[in-house]
């Protein structure tokens, strides 16, 4: 996924630039025109609206966003949920990916598991969150079971708590990390692990010194993807918050759908975008500094 994102096309011995551009242009005209018209320009419109107040250029909208403690609180909740979700997804998804790629020897079983992994991925957020609404309700299956086996004395409230939202988001984002890590694991050359064992490493040491570092790029790509999706999720928090918790994307939605204040809404959008991109860039930098130069 990252390869495509950062631009790593199969570079073919190509024609010299001026000729190349002349030949590429007919192919590129339609896609570029479309993306400029319906992607780049709308984003620029949002940006420029956010920089206008009362008909004149102004930073007033950003002041309104950034000087209000409420927004900082919402941001904190949003990114706390995103961070917890990412952590949980990694801790649950990594073992599953490792199990599916390295332990399962039957192709039929692996294939069935891949189908079960894709099934939620191909189902709408709303449907999946709806499933959790049923499960996490006061008299839902989760509470019934926990009370039934004696772990709880009485039903706990999940809906309307950050825990509930995290449970829902983890569920939605888990397949992403399993696929990212699993595909990275599948490309690690098994003879490298054999070489490690041959040189005296126990399986445990081999995992930490060879396997894990080699699939770190896949893990980082997955983590970044999950984090951005968790931070920008709207549907799942909206359904599982029960109106009691607000995350940043909800603020944006309110401004555009009910208040229709494109200036203030624009400033909110740009803020979310910038904070997310900064965190992603930081994560990428830490990942690259982690010693993996391959």
């Amino acid at each position, binding site marked *: 996924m990252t390869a495509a994102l950062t631009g790593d096309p199969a570079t073919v011995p190509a024609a010299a630039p001026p000729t190349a551009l002349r030949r590429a242009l007919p192919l590129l005209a339609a896609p570029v025109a479309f993306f400029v018209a319906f992607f780049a320009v709308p984003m620029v419109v949002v940006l420029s609206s956010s920089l206008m107040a009362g008909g004149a250029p102004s930073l007033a909208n950003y002041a309104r966003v950034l000087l209000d403690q409420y927004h900082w609180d919402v941001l904190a909740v949003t990114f706390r949920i995103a961070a917890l979700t990412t952590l949980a997804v990694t801790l649950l998804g990594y073992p599953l990916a490792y199990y599916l790629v390295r332990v399962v020897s039957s192709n039929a079983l692996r294939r069935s598991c891949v189908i079960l992994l894709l099934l939620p991925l191909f189902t709408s957020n709303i449907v999946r969150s709806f499933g959790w609404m049923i499960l996490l309700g006061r008299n839902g299956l989760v509470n019934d079971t926990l009370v039934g086996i004696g772990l709880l004395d009485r039903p706990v409230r999940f809906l309307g708590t950050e825990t509930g939202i995290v449970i829902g988001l983890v569920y939605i984002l888990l397949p992403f990390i399993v696929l990212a890590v699993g595909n990275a694991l599948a490309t690690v050359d098994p003879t*490298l692990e*054999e*070489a*490690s*064992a*041959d*040189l*005296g*490493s*126990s399986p445990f040491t081999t995992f930490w010194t060879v396997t894990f570092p080699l699939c770190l790029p896949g893990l980082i790509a997955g983590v970044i993807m999950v984090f951005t999706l968790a931070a920008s999720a709207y549907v799942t928090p909206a359904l599982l918050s029960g109106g009691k918790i607000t995350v940043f994307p909800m603020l944006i939605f309110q401004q555009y759908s009910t208040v229709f204040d494109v200036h203030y809404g624009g400033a909110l959008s740009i803020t979310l975008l910038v904070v997310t991109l900064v965190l992603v860039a930081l994560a990428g930098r830490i990942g690259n500094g982690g010693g993996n130069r391959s």
Partner: protein
Amino acid sequence: MPPALLSIRDLGKHFGGFHALKGVSLEVEHGEFIALLGPSGCGKTTLLRCIAGFLTPDSGDIRIGGDSVTRLPPHRRPLNTVFQNYALFPHMSVLDNIAYGPRRHGVPRGEAAERAAQALQLVGLEALGARYPRELSGGQQQRVALARAVVNRPKLLLLDEPLSALDMKLRKRMQIELKHLQEKLGIAFVFVTHDQEEAMSMADRIVVMNRGLIEQVGSGTAVYATPATRFVAEFIGEANFLPGAADGDGGLRLAFGTAAVPHPGPGASTGIGTGAGQSRTGVLRPEHLELLDRADAPGFLTERGIVEDVINTGGQTLVMVRVGDALLASRRLGMPGAGLGRGTQVVVGFRPEHLHVVAGEPAP
């Protein structure tokens, strides 16, 4: 008598319905250079992987220095491996790759680095320690893999076609270097290859394998001059095959004229029956089939033939001669002489002691 360094008994291994090893036994002494030679699918790599511990055999036993290692995981076995594709860790520098083994054996960081540097010096790459594997040429990667495998000073080194990825010139040079290094370190090498020339030029003993079985174990000279089976004769070097059968009186009737060859004659392997009608194959190396100027040359069995082709292979000349139904090859030093061309009538012959006889018919 102290136990052999490596002792393999009746090793069997199958993958599904495919029997990769069908009862293989072999002993390797300290400091020996053994080549496992055979076509692809003969079981040589499976055998090597069983010794290294990457595969668990279905039956049989592997002992190192008298102790069974059959059930030990690879990291507990006192040996190291040079992999076919080198298997250098791409996320570690050359020095870290080499220091990896000592670190795993509890050697402190500083001393491990020192040992790695020494090993790197041994292969002549002391200047490249800080590089990453992908920044090295194929030959350099090969040497790093070697340094990494010998840094722990194992008694036994396994090499899985380590030179197959190199071009021919470099391969020849590495063959010599590898042989010198082996003698210098006194480590026993078990070297898998499908290149008979490589095996001949390097190994003390060659183990020729086919279809999961060992066909012959012997020096390069022995497997070339006295192949134990038809397969070995076909696989090692070039040979003319003369089909024939035992005549029941200790003689052999060959499809080379009507000559009766004494059997068992000089150079014949023992242990094959002499019952009448049992098929035999005479193995005659091209250098032993000579072009003669007369049909009654003393000590030779001769026949008349017609030259079909004269091939100059640089320093040697190969003459293909049609004798009856058979097309036979004769090789001699020097350039093709004048007057020898397609269609020339010639007399070819060999000394009976150069004929080596094995059981069975030649492959079609």
